[in-house]
Every structure is written in C-alpha cells, then in structure tokens.
C-alpha cells in the first residue's frame, strides 16, 4: 500500500474555495469603496459601524447554513427577530420592575428561550408532521409577526434599560481596548495551539500532515487577522478622547456565533448528520442518522440564533418595534448563499455565510456613503446575489480541491 502523498503547493493551505471567493470579493469591494469614497470606507469608525450592522444578519446566516445544509429553509427568522425582540422589550419594561437589576438579563434569557421554543415548534411540524419547511416557516413568518403586533397592539415599547442597550453596541456598547486585546490574544493562542495539536495528533496516527510552512501561514494569517481587527476597533475612540472603544458587543456575539457554529458544523456529530441528511435523506437514514431528531435540532438552533438577533436588534434600537426583522429572512438566506451554501443541501460554510453577511452589508454601507439611492442599492445587491450563485455553480464542476 502506497501512502497518499501530502498535498502540495497552494492546495496544502486547505482553504475552502467558498471562503476564499467571498474573502476576495470582500477585499476588492473594500478597496473599491475606499477609493470611491475618498478614504471614508476604510476608517475605524466606518468599519466599526459596518461590523455592528452586519452582526444581526451574520449571526442568523451562520444558523441558516445548517438549516439549508439539511435541505430545509427557514423563512420565519425575520418574524422571530420581531417577536423575540419585542419579548425582551415588553418583559423588562412592563412585566418586570423597571429598576430591577435582574430585569434585562432575565428578559434577554426569556427572549432567547422563546426563539429556541419557536424553533422547536417549526422543527416539530417539519420533522414529525412531515410538512415541508417552506410551508411551516412561511406560516411562521405570518404567525410570529402577527403575535408580536398583537402583544402590544402595535405600540413601540421604550425606553429600555441601559444595561440592555449596551448589547446593541451603542453608547458604552463595546468591551474596551484592554478587553479586546486580551480576547484577541486568547484567540491567537487558541488558533496556534489547536493547529499544532492537530499536527501532533496526525503524526501520532501516522496520517500525512500539512507542510509546516502551510500551518505556519495559516497561524500567521489567523493571528494577523485577529490582531488587525482588534487594532482597528481600538483605533475608533470615544468622543473627545483617545480611549479606544474596542470590539462592539454585538460583533463579539457574531464572532462567537461564527466560531461556535463553524465548530458545530465541521467538528460535531450533529453538524455532520445535518449535512448528511441534506445531501441524501434516505441514505442518511439507512446509515443510522436520526433524521427527525437532527432536523428538529437544526430548527431549534436557528430559532435560538434568531432570538439572539432579536435581542441585539431591540437593544440597538433602544426599543421594541413592530418592524424589527422585517425581510431579514431574505438577507439571511442571501448571505448564506453568497457564502457558498447550496440550496440543494449537503454543503455549506459557516465562515463563508458570515463573510457573506459582511459583504452584503459592505455593499449597502459603501453605496450609502456614495449617496446611491435605496432603490438602486436593492438592484445592485440583487444582481450580486445572482452573480455569486452563478459563479458558484459555474465553477463547481471544475473544482478539485
């Protein structure tokens, strides 16, 4: 038996093609907008705003990768944002004592639980009652939007507790420059540690490892990205001071979600089974995948993330309103698809989807800076979606990585 040759050249870096594609598009867009806006786009202030603006869609896009990967769809995420964001607002303002310190944390927890519960509801109808998820979640889109409205008779609920509003990334809504540096350092340490650990594990099992230079490049790029990001966030200072704001809290949630969901998708049994049943439900069932349970769990996870997005949305607005999350489902699905998730199921990349959300928000943000009208922005983003999927399907056949 001849051992397989270790990969050579650029392939040794094992970059996911989807992630590489969207990453490249992002860099091109950033440079283009920066030139076109005369240097406004790539300022710490704009990048911090951009990151905050991306976080709600980015968080949900990460979950949508698993839902679409399992060959389902969730059209209700925007409405879940609406009802959970409203729940967080109503609970802390009207149900709990206004000045209670535990008010907003408990309201947040309840909103997350509500999101997960709605996910279980949708997963139940899809998995155990065999209603197509398109229909279940289309119904959910109507039901939960209606519930949010009915709950408050359409009122806007405000003001919210200051501690809660910090979650949205507004005033005092970042973790400061020291905290950001510490977190960044920990992240670099983890990346380097896990990469090296993997090397050792593979050696121990006598499986070919990546060339040392490839692991080194991966660690350096990862560390550079993290520390660079922290530096930019720290360069955006509080008004009339040189105190860096650091990483905004919603962005922290987005990064944590991206890392967590990427791990779930690629390194857990649940994630693997979700993609397996999306690729071929019958074969997955014959292989011992508990199709219904896994399906339910993907919707529950999606609901939880939509609940988190709802919390961040109302925190950012400083109010619970009836339009929160409207049409978010379309942006979430678009972000996942731009990030390389196939609507046929079976494959997708969490990192790609989150980058897809950042990319779409960059287009939006950049065009706003350029004074492009809202109608024209919609047209452009629609065309980009079409283009992204076309490039993906046109190159899929030729990929050998």
């Amino acid at each position: 038996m001849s051992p397989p040759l270790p990969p050579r050249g650029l392939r040794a870096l094992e970059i996911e093609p989807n992630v590489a594609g969207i990453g490249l598009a992002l860099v091109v867009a950033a440079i283009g907008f920066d030139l076109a806006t005369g240097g406004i786009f790539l300022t710490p202030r704009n990048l911090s705003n951009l990151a905050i603006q991306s976080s709600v869609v980015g968080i949900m896009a990460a979950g949508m990768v698993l839902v679409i990967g399992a060959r389902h769809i969730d059209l209700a995420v925007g409405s879940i944002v609406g009802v959970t964001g409203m729940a967080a607002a109503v609970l802390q303002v009207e149900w709990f004592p206004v000045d209670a310190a535990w008010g907003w944390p408990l309201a947040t927890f309840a909103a997350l639980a509500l999101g997960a519960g709605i996910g279980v509801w949708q997963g139940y109808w899809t998995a155990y009652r065999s209603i197509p998820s398109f229909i279940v979640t289309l119904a959910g889109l109507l039901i939960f939007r209606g519930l949010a409205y009915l709950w408050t008779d359409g009122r806007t609920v405000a003001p919210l507790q200051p501690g809660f509003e910090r979650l949205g990334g507004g005033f005092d809504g970042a973790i400061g420059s020291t905290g950001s540096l510490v977190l960044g350092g920990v992240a670099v340490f983890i990346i380097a540690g896990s990469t090296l650990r993997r090397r050792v594990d593979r050696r121990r099992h006598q499986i070919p490892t990546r060339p040392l230079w490839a692991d080194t490049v991966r660690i350096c790029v990862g560390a550079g990205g993290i520390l660079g990001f922290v530096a930019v966030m720290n360069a955006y200072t509080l008004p009339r001071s040189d105190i860096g704001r650091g990483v905004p809290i919603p962005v922290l949630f987005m990064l944590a979600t991206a890392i967590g969901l990427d791990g779930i998708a690629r390194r857990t049994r649940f994630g693997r089974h979700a993609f397996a049943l999306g690729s071929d439900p019958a074969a997955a069932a014959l292989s011992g995948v508990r199709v219904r349970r896994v399906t339910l769990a993907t919707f529950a996870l999606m609901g939880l993330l939509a609940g988190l997005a709802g919390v961040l949305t109302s925190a950012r607005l400083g109010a619970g309103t009836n339009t929160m999350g409207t049409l978010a489902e379309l942006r979430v699905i678009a972000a996942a698809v731009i990030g390389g998730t196939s609507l046929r199921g079976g494959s997708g990349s969490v990192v790609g989807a989150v980058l897809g959300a950042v990319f779409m928000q960059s287009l939006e943000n950049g065009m706003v800076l350029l004074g492009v009208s809202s109608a024209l922005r919609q047209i452009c983003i629609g065309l980009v979606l079409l283009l992204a999927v076309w490039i993906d399907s046109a190159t899929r056949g030729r990929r050998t990585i």
Partner: protein
Amino acid sequence: MTATPLVDLSAICKRFGGLEAVSNASLTLYPGEVVAVLGHNGAGKSTLMGVLSGATPCDSGTVRIRGETVEISSPARARALGVETVHQQLALIEELDAVANLFLGRELRTRFGLLDEEAMEAAARDVLGRLNPRFTQLREPVRNLSGGQRSTIAIARAVHFEARVLILDEPSAALGPTEKRTVAETIEALRAEGIGIFLVSHDLHDVMDVATRVVIMRAGRTIGGGNTADLSHDEIVAMIVSGGPDR
C-alpha cells in the same frame, strides 16, 4: 451447525398500502452460513431483508437474533444488534468523504465530544487499505470516486464494526469484475470467522459459487430452498420460475 440460529425470521408480514410485499415469510441463518435469497424482481427479497436491516420494519411476525426476540425499528437499532447491510444503492453521502461515510452514524469522538478526525482517518486508512490496497482518496468527496471505490467504502462500513450478520443486497449491481472478486473473497473470509451472510440477488450466477444454501422467494413468500451442493442450477431456476421443482 449450532442449535440457536443467528437470525430467525418467522411469519413475517409487510404491507405497503394495498400491496402485500411479504406475507408469512420465514427464514433462518446460522453462523458461518452464506444464504442466497433468490427470486424475481418484486418477489419480496429486499423487503424481507429490510425487515432485518431496519429499513422497513415489519407489520407482524417474530424476529429473533441469537434466540432473543427483538424489535428492529430502525437501521440504527439493527446495527446495534450486529446486523450490517450493504444496500443496493450503497447509501453513501455524495458530499462527504470516505472517512465520514465509513463512520456515519458511529463517529469516533474525542473526550470533548468532538469528532476525532485523526482516529477515524487512521482507522479508515487501515480498513479500506485491507479491502483495496489502491484506495488512497480518503478525503475526497464520494461524489468524485469510482463505482468500485464506492462499493469498497460500503463494504468496509459493513465489516468494520464487528458485524454478526451481513446483508448484501444485490451486491453485483454496482460492481465491476475486480470488485466482484473482492466481494467474494471478503464473503469467504467473513464466513470463516463465523459471521452469517444473506446474499440477495436475482442473478443465479452471482451466488452459486459463494452461497452455502439458497432460499427461494415468490410473491412475498419463502417457498423453498436447500443446500447449494444438493441442488442443480436447473432445479433452482424451476423453483424461481414456477414455485417448486416438480410442480
């Protein structure tokens, strides 16, 4: 032969709507036996095997494994009882690589509960290499592999987890000549270890060399059979076609 059969199916019935796919079928399998289940397309062979593999749980009848009455409600349950199946369509996931397919549903995990990719890859390399020394594309999605490589994965998946009973459903349908020989050798090796094997086929030539016994199915019933050594090719054909050697 030992007194207790590995598998004892008795009075099995399975309906699909108005169609009685299997009616009152009975079948036994002893350790070290290779039993060919023969019959026309639609005779109920695959359905009866599905009752054992968990793919199509039966409506009535008794399933005993090593003397114990069991209820095989799902493929996962069948696997837990030591019943492994190589399905006609192989049941591989196109998007996943060979390692992931081999361990699908039985992934090895680290103490943190995460997939232990290194351990799985090492084990996959060993088991696949034993079946097919030229198999090195462990990390290639199955979509990009040849028919022979796919069947190697499917067989490896069935033999890697200490099967007591192996079901091969139309194994030759997806195989080239080399793989057919590998399958025959693998069957012989497993039989010698005391594993019981069901071989489902509608092609007599495929099974006569490896089967120790044949069972004929017709219209959902098991209508007869015997030791391969005692039966001529023509007698078996006569049973498949007309329902009995002298009728």
